């Protein structure tokens, strides 16, 4: 028997275990390793502090989503040894492989910012990128009586780059409902020169921030947190005081990647952007947030990558040329508060622009426009995630190759490639 080993049973790893179980030849044995038994619906963390989702909505047993054909090992992982085609588990046991898929994701690294894990951490300063962080922030939002609510993005890239914006929009909505908006200053601090990384979307979202009276401190590269003075300080010595700090700390690849000496300066794995093969070794493939690819770190990206990777690994198993190409396709709903939302659809070459999705002129979703249906789409995504996406079924009408149909592409935003 030949061995396919998958590290990480998050969004990407779970999809790959499912598609490979359906498609790989019977001569392949499939094993998937993860350290925890809970599968978290990470997009749901954003909604917890506003009471839209409860803790129950965002967690289910991992095993429920894994195929019976794959052997599930619940264990930490000590090291990947690419030269020996083996992986050492936390207990010292060694697993050999013919093909390895690394889907170990990324994590927040608050310890990378001077003072962020100081006395305010977990009290006046929180994150919403972990289950624990979102829980504590939920309590803080419940107790909130007004003051300065500061959102900070430490540095790029981050998982789901629109989530901090959504937090700002939802906070505006939530505090308005509770009659606390007038007593609250919402400040959005970002190292970028605008609301988003790409110009057309950035201009539209900047405008919306302004409309909602959210104060933006752009080009703000956080240097440290002053826990005594309750303020964040940038490298160029700007100070922003907070009563509540909602931090999006530095995101890094798993520590396993550093121990295995396979990562870049952020522990992301150098990956071929077309084939999803690790640059270091031909029988190692990388998917989801663990890669260093220049596209969003997001579940939709992991899903599109999985369609490409499944085909490529099947080709590789047969010793054939890998023909599928990943184009960097990302598709994200953005909650903008008051029951409305945006939709972004883009890839390596084409930035998000206005239009209709997935059908030209029809939609039903509006690209880069604020609609109620986009909001419902975002909420429906939870069902799609648990019931279709993790199983690795294609999302109806949405191909892994981004479609240019329905997009209103201004000349300047048109990709030169």
């Amino acid at each position, binding site marked *: 028997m030949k061995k396919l080993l998958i590290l990480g049973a998050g969004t990407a790893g779970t999809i790959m275990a499912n598609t490979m179980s359906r498609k790989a030849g019977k001569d392949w044995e499939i094993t998937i390793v993860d350290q925890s038994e809970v599968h978290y619906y990470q997009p749901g963390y954003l909604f917890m502090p506003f009471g839209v989702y409860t803790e129950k909505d965002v967690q289910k047993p991992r095993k429920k989503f894994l195929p019976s054909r794959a052997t599930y090992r619940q264990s930490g992982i000590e090291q990947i040894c690419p030269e020996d085609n083996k992986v050492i588990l936390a207990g010292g046991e060694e697993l050999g492989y013919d093909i390895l898929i690394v889907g170990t994701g990324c994590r927040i690294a608050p310890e990378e910012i001077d003072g962020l894990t100081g006395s305010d951490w977990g009290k006046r300063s929180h994150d919403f990128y972990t289950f624990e962080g979102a829980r504590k922030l939920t309590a803080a939002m419940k107790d909130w009586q007004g003051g300065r609510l500061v959102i900070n993005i430490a*540095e*790029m*890239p981050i998982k789901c*780059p629109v989530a901090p914006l959504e937090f700002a929009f939802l906070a505006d909505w939530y505090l308005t409902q509770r009659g606390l908006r007038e007593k609250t200053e919402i400040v959005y601090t970002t*190292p*970028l*020169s605008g609301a988003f*990384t*790409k110009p057309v979307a950035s201009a539209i979202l900047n405008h919306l921030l302004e409309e909602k009276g959210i104060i933006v401190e752009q*080009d703000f*590269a956080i*240097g440290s947190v002053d826990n005594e003075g309750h303020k964040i300080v940038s*490298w*160029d010595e700007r100070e922003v005081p907070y009563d509540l700090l909602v931090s999006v700390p*530095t995101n890094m690849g798993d520590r396993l990647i550093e121990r295995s000496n396979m990562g*870049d*300066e*952020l522990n992301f794995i150098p990956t071929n952007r077309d084939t999803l093969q690790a640059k270091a070794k031909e029988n190692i493939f990388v998917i989801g947030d663990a890669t260093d690819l*220049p*596209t*969003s770190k997001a579940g939709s990206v992991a899903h599109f990558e999985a369609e490409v990777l499944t085909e490529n690994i099947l080709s590789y198993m047969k010793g054939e040329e890998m023909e599928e190409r990943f184009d960097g396709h*990302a598709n994200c709903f953005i909650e903008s508060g008051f029951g409305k939302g945006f939709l972004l659809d883009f890839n390596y070459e084409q930035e998000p622009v206005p239009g209709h999705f997935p059908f030209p002129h029809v939609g039903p979703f509006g690209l880069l426009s604020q609609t109620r249906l986009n909001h419902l789409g975002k909420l429906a995504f939870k069902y799609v995630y648990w019931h279709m996406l993790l199983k690795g079924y294609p999302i109806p009408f949405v191909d892994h190759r981004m479609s240019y149909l329905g997009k209103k592409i201004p000349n300047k935003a048109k990709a030169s490639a």
Partner: protein
Amino acid sequence: MATKELAGSSVEVNEEGYLTDRTQWNEAVAAALATEEGIELSDEHWKVLKFIESDFAEKQAVPGMRRLNKVGGIPTKDLYRLFPGGPIKKAARIAGFPKPASCV
């Protein structure tokens, strides 16, 4: 897109003043671009510019702050001292590279 005279050579720049053709870049052009940013290039500046150049050749991307720290060995404090206001954006422009997209 516009054509511009810099240090005796004619270069193509985009609407934000970034060179669109790096083959038109040279050290005199760098010095002229630096002057526009109110910076006089010293050896310390050149260390940053040289690192960006060699790293771009390897990664086809302008390195971020953390990469300049960890791989280039240049502390963030120094970057802000050398290129006040927006170190990566300014250094990339002076080095003749595109404005960093700072990922996605």
